[in-house]
């Protein structure tokens, strides 16, 4: 007996703990989802870190002007104005030196092809192409700290059970032989597989541009180089000192010359045979340029000056005259200490760059996000240049001593502002919200603004709620209060089945059936929506002419009358009214009207103003005509009263329309056009896209209706029966009971139903993915496509590389969705709980 009791007790306790554990564990899953999303997103906003790897004295003194680093941060090629040195960094030794046969008068560099353009005093232009190689000597998994040694120009990296060999090869290619004896003072070039584009300035102030094209004869294998040259005399523009920098932009459409004192000349080279000076100005009044280079991609110019600032410039559209571009300052960074900027090195990977100033301070910034990534404190005396490797994970500071750092900046382009604020991307004229996560080109800068996606989400949600809330609430009120009792369960079950319809089915129907169908009858579609309620109310008024007994028993037939009379009548009215309106207000073609801006916007305004017209008409009626209407009803017969009711309805309808016409006329008089230039929101309706917000709103409403319906119907049903009975017993009609007792009591429940529907619409994925066209734009136009957070995740997450910036930003999108719905649902649930308490007290 005791044993059995013990067993029972143990079983009871075990069950208790297991169930509690399981219960709480299950529920903490919510927390887990949130925490996991948060955890994945968090690294986005972390700043970078640097760790020193080694420091080594150089065995030779070099006056460094520029350099290039290999992928592993172990070898570098340094240019000192005369020769190219190959440095093995971990040992600090010069292992090779390439001399140029004559004195170099100018040099340019091209990181993309790892090459230098060197102009010599004999008028020869040489391209030095640098190749870094890594070979495996002994295969194995590297472990521990490596040791380095040099043997016969090779750098050996040895681990316990693996060894690698690094070498550097510099190849000199003669590319141009200028016949003139004038010294070349500036040079820049762009090389690709077969083409070279070289520009140089000679001391007689003539700018030369050479285009070299290498062709290989397929039959003979012979390589021919075509050279075409063009020049422009700049002696009129260049007075005094010669310019200090010459740069060719990536599209080879403009060549820019900069002077130390801040003067700037831009030459338009779009037409190869006819160059012209497109812009000439002074960039700075009181600063001197101390260093200048391109950011990766050769679009933005980084200018370091003597005050310690680095400013970033690119041509933007002139606000005064379109199609005219002016070189303007976009960003500015301060490197500290008010000392001149000594050297700038752009990253090979993204839009970040390193600044070295005269006081030896080294900092790294990202242009578009403006993020201050890291500060380095090189205890190198007299640092001269600083280099970054291709992968952006090694920094080498060179002076008398070499210091190498490991750099870890996982997501330089992300700040809170770059995700949620307006950002001015390279070559754009103004800051904007852009989502563009990938592209074909290498130098592409991903644009991660979540605003277009959040905007799309809210747009879709609002339009669908505009449609779903009235339908669902009306349906709920009717089912719980007026529908014949025996139908109620059937109706409710049917609508619950509607809730279970997979959204992929709705999406398919929206995209492949509804949108092509609606495309041809846009106005008819809109008018049907207006006409169905109109004809229902109209028929309601007509039915008041029926004898009182039939009217009182209306509950039995009303549904069928609506189905077979009201709805068809609405559709019929819509379909005959739409062509008429199209002809009279929209010049016969609504879709053409939408994008033909010389047509008057009047018709569109009328359409938009109809709801306001109705509201205003009702308001005016209540305020000024209500007493008159009541006095008319005094002492009327049954039919007479019904007739006056009908007249009232017509008067209201006509005055609503008149008011909307007046409002529209007023707006047109004000010169506003809803198709393009409304202040702040730009346009309400413009060019029609087949898969648009209206269609998605309609079909998504379909998905949301059952939820709002079920929850609000429950709320209506939960109103205590005694309130209903009391109201009816006091002589109120059913309608009065609903309006004055039931709806006010159930209000909070209904509100929470709307919130829940809202939450569901925000997260809906498949419908939007299939029917919204997926264009991430911020546009109020109800006839344009859009992209929501959820659809964006569904499209892009499968392709995002794990733990990349893109991947984490998509997690951020999911987190934003989670938080949005969390707030809405918690709010709704709190209201519902409060309401439950309140109604139980009633």
């Amino acid at each position: 007996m005791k044993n059995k009791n013990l067993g029972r007790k143990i079983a009871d306790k075990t069950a208790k703990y297991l169930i509690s554990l399981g219960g709480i564990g299950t529920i903490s899953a919510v927390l887990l989802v949130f925490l996991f999303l948060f955890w994945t997103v968090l690294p986005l906003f972390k700043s970078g870190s640097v760790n020193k790897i080694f420091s080594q004295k150089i065995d030779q003194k070099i006056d460094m002007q520029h350099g290039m680093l290999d992928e592993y941060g172990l070898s570098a090629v340094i240019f000192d104005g005369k020769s190219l040195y190959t440095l093995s960094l971990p040992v600090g030794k010069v292992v090779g030196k390439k001399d140029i046969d004559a004195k170099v008068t100018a040099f340019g560099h091209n990181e993309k092809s790892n090459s230098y353009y060197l102009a010599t005093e004999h008028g020869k232009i040489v391209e030095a192409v640098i190749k870094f190689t890594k070979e495996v000597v002994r295969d194995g998994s590297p472990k521990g700290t490596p040791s380095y040694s040099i043997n016969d120009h090779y750098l050996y990296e040895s681990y316990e059970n693996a060894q690698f060999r690094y070498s550097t090869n510099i190849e000199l290619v003669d590319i141009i032989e200028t016949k003139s004896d004038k010294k070349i003072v500036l040079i820049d070039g762009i090389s690709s597989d077969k083409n070279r584009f070289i520009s140089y300035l000679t001391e007689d102030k003539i700018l030369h541009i050479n285009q070299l094209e290498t062709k290989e004869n397929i039959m003979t294998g012979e390589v021919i180089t075509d050279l075409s040259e063009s020049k422009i005399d700049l002696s009129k523009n260049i007075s005094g000192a010669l310019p200090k920098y010459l740069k060719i932009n990536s599209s080879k459409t403009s060549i820019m010359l900069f002077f130390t004192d801040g003067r700037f000349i831009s030459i338009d080279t779009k037409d190869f045979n006819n160059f012209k000076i497109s812009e000439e100005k002074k960039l700075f009044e009181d600063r001197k340029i101390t260093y200048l280079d391109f950011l990766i991609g050769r679009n933005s110019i980084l200018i370091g000056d003597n005050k310690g600032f680095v400013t970033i410039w690119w041509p933007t559209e002139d606000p005064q005259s379109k199609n005219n571009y002016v070189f303007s300052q976009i960003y500015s960074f301060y490197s500290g200490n008010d000392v001149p900027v000594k050297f700038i090195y752009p990253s090979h990977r993204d839009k970040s760059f390193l600044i070295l100033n005269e006081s030896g301070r080294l900092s790294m910034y990202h242009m578009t996000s403006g993020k201050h990534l890291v500060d380095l404190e090189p205890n190198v005396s007299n640092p001269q240049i600083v280099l970054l490797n291709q992968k952006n994970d090694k920094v080498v500071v060179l002076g008398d001593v070499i210091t190498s750092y490991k750099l870890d900046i996982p997501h330089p382009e992300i700040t809170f502002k770059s995700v949620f604020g307006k950002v001015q991307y390279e070559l754009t004229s103004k800051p904007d919200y852009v989502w563009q996560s990938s592209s074909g080109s290498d130098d592409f800068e991903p644009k991660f603004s979540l605003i277009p996606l959040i905007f799309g989400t809210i747009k879709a949600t609002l339009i669908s709620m505009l449609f779903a809330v009235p339908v669902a609430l009306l349906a709920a009120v009717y089912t719980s209060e007026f529908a014949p009792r025996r139908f109620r369960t059937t109706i409710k079950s049917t609508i619950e089945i509607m809730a279970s319809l997979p959204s992929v089915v709705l999406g398919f129907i929206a995209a492949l059936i509804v949108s092509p169908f609606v495309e041809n009858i846009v106005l008819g579609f809109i008018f049907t929506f207006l006409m169905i309620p109109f004809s229902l109310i109209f028929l309601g008024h007509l039915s008041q002419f029926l004898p009182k007994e039939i009217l009182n028993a209306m509950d039995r037939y009303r549904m069928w009358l609506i189905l077979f009379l009201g709805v068809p009548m609405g559709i019929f009215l819509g379909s005959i009214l739409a062509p008429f309106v199209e002809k009279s207000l929209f010049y016969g073609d609504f879709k053409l009207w939408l994008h033909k801006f010389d047509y008057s916007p009047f018709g569109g305004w009328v359409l938009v103003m109809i709801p306001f017209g109705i509201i205003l008409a009702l308001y005016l009626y209540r305020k000024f005509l209500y007493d008159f209407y009541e006095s008319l009803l005094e002492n009327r017969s049954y039919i007479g009263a019904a007739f006056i009711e009908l007249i009232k309805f017509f008067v209201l309808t006509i005055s609503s329309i008149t008011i909307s016409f007046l409002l529209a006329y007023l707006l047109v008089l004000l010169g506003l056009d809803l198709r393009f230039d409304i202040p702040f929101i730009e346009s309400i309706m413009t060019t029609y896209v087949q898969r648009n917000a209206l269609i998605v709103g309609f079909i998504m409403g379909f998905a949301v209706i059952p939820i709002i319906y079920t929850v609000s119907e429950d709320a209506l049903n939960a109103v205590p029966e005694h309130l209903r009975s009391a109201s009816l017993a006091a002589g109120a009609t059913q309608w009065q009971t609903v309006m004055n007792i039931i709806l006010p009591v159930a209000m909070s429940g209904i509100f929470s139903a709307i919130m829940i529907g809202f939450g569901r619409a925000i997260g809906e994925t498949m419908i939007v993915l299939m029917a919204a066209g997926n264009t991430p734009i911020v546009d109020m136009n109800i006839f344009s496509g859009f992209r929501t957070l959820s659809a964006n995740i569904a499209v892009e997450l499968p392709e995002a590389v794990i733990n990349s910036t893109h991947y984490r930003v998509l997690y951020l999108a999911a987190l934003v969705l989670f938080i949005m719905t969390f707030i809405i649902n918690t709010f709704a649930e709190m209201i519902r709980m409060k309401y439950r308490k309140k109604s139980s007290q009633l």
Partner: protein
Amino acid sequence: MSKFARKNYKIFFKSKGEPMLWLTGGGLIAALLMIGLLLLLVIKNGMGTFWPDPITHFELKSGDKLMGEVTKIEYFKLPQEKITLLTEQDRNRIEKNSGREKRFLLRIGNFELTNEHFKWVSEFEIAKITYPEDAMILERLEWGRFYGFPKEFRIDGKVVATDMKSIMKNYEEYHSKVRYLWSEKVEIEKKEIGKLNHKIEKERLKLKEAKLNLQKAIDSNDQDRIKTAQEKYERAEKDFNLFTQWSKKEYDNYVKKIDDLKKNYEKYAIKFVTSDGKEKEIKLFEIVRSYQANALSFWDKTMIYFGRWVEFQTDHPREANSEGGVFPAIFGTVVMTLLMSLFVVPFGVIAAIYMKEYAKSGKIISILRIAINNLAGVPSIVYGVFGLGFFAYTIGASIDQLFYEAKLPNPTFGTGGILWASLTLALLTLPVVIVATEEAINAVPNSLREGSYACGATKWQTIRNIVLPRAMPGIMTGFILSMSRGAGEVAPLMLTGAVKLAPEMPVDSIYPFVHLERSFMHLGFHIYDLGFQSQNSDAAIPMVYTTTLLLITIVVLLNVMAIYIRNRLRKKFIGSVF
């Protein structure tokens, strides 16, 4: 009396609110109408897809001849300058249709000859429409449908029949035999060679594992370990070489078998002439189904109709999913849903019991309720994101590190798969089960519990013997509802493992029979993929409809079942309060 009534008319209509009642009723009707129309649309198109259409033969005024099935007829606006070029008769007809002209979308098939699957034909282009009795439709393994007139029946290149009747006789005689041989060949390819490949892969992994171990041993610098690992590796290498020899022989065997079969069935062919006079020989085994569309009786059509339904539900997809069946998708959906309920039901029930029977303070209950409602309200795509990141990339990647190191960097569990998909959906449907179970537990009258306690039962005994049995129908409801939700959900599956075409099923005859790491096909995803990613979308849309019909049928049936059980449950317990 009448005076009193007359006075009341002033407020009678106002208080009655009849027009507003019509409006509210309109809301309900609109909602119901939308469901009705949607279901009707899907049923009509889904049911109609498989009904054999006649072959229409168009002779055009330009002299071209086109033949195929008319799949769509519509009216389109013809530009005025084009109308003026037409004959008077055409012009009159178009004017009568207010500037619109009728056009037919003709499925012309014969893709390898025409490079088109479909063609629009406007009425003014047509000279003559006929329905030739001899024309045949072929559904083929490749290239889609074929429309043509049979000309010769050939065996081994020799013509054995030239007239329609004997061609058909030969066709009926050999077709099923040839198809049987062909299916045998497919069986060998899929099953036997599949198994062999699987074995080869396993052996290869064994060798790689031995190598990895050796590498590890070398890294550890432990001489004994190196020695044993070395020995093991050498043995594995030897085994592998032996195995390779054996498998090669085995493979050659199968290839020979297949060649024999091929020789047997590839010799039968029919030569067809297309409507524009081109000739084309089609091997008998390539023909899945063929019929003379214009000579069919109603009974024949019905047989073809049901035959196609059977094929649709039992066969594998062909032609980028636009032909054949959806069996793998049905199977994937079912397996995934069942797996999901395996996870969700126990946890959901435990959570509900905890909330209703164990949790005490009101605060905790409120927090729990908010948590559950949030769980229900979080968008499904967020679950997908969580499932991919947490299950696949975190847990799955760790499993790979521990148990499938030899296969790396190819992920085994570290990517989307049926296990992760069903776990994700389990999390998603958890609130459904919790709410349904809670409701059922609520419905168990307290008097029963008190009676049980009075008899000296412990809490757990009461729950097990009194509460749970009575809550069973409610739990069933939750179970069914969660299955219906799981079957219809697509967004999270897109991220966690549903694919357009899965080469292998998650359950098959190769040890260990259930492969939880495999990706799978899903009906909902199939709809998305077919409707939106298909190249030949005109041909795919009928399949989208039938798949939709199938999915809706499953989901609606599950729901109706759940609703039925719930309604019964409510009735039962209303009566049982004592």
